[in-house]
């Protein structure tokens, strides 16, 4: 166990990465705010124009920075967020159609297709499994 006051190899590496890749605090703050905006507005009609207006940044710049700091594009992040929320809604018993629109998708077809791609199951199958699982827990 290294002495607490000594810097470990890992801490040295972290400091190096921080200095070389994450030194622009203002830029990082803008991107964090963009993610937070998506988190609280994912059910709305969001696109790069809206996001860039919020932060007064050019949309291409924003797209590039988001990908750089989060490793995925704003659109990919938005889809993941919506799918994550739709799983919560389906678990709570909300219908597939209602869930689709509640999380911001405009078409049931694209929602079902994306849901299956991301989770391996259709929304209705996912919901049935959740219900049967909770019944199993209480009845078995």
């Amino acid at each position, binding site marked *: *166990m290294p002495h607490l006051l000594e810097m470990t190899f890992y*801490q040295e590496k972290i400091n190096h990465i921080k200095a070389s890749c*994450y030194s622009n605090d203002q830029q990082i703050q803008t991107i964090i705010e963009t*993610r937070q905006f998506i988190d609280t507005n994912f059910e709305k009609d969001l696109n790069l124009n809206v996001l860039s207006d919020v932060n007064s940044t050019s949309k291409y710049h924003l797209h590039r920075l988001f990908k750089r700091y989060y490793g995925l594009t704003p659109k990919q992040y938005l889809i993941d967020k919506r799918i994550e929320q739709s799983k919560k809604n389906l678990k709570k018993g909300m219908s597939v159609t209602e869930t689709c629109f509640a999380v911001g998708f405009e078409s049931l077809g694209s929602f079902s297709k994306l849901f299956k791609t991301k989770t391996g199951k259709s929304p209705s199958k996912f919901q049935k499994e959740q219900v049967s699982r909770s019944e199993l827990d209480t009845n078995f």
Partner: protein
Amino acid sequence: MKVTLISIPVRDQEKALKFYTEKLGFIIKKDAPLGGGNRWITLVSPEWQDGPELLLEPAPNHFEPSKVFQDALMEAGIPYTQFDVDSVDEEYDRLLKLDVAFSVQPTEMGTVKFAVFNDTCGNNIQIVETL
């Protein structure tokens, strides 16, 4: 192919089971005997029970290179495994009260906050919060 299992080397499975369930809060998914006192123990997150399983793997006791690698990572302070949390600060406070030792206190870097603690089973573990 699906990613379903993450292995973590531990020196003492029973001790690890206690630490990972009682302090970290994971729950047992599978526990089966493997002979020679070894067990196939997997854990899952209580809020994601159909998510990936964490295998408490006793490799360092049976395969010397695993022990050497684990010791080297520990010495260098490198966490080979990380878990996502909603709040690093809250987990840090909670685990400190449970006498968990941290080698890296909550630190922000780019769009994440993280901290590193000792799992008492031979590993540095990193907890991460996306900012």
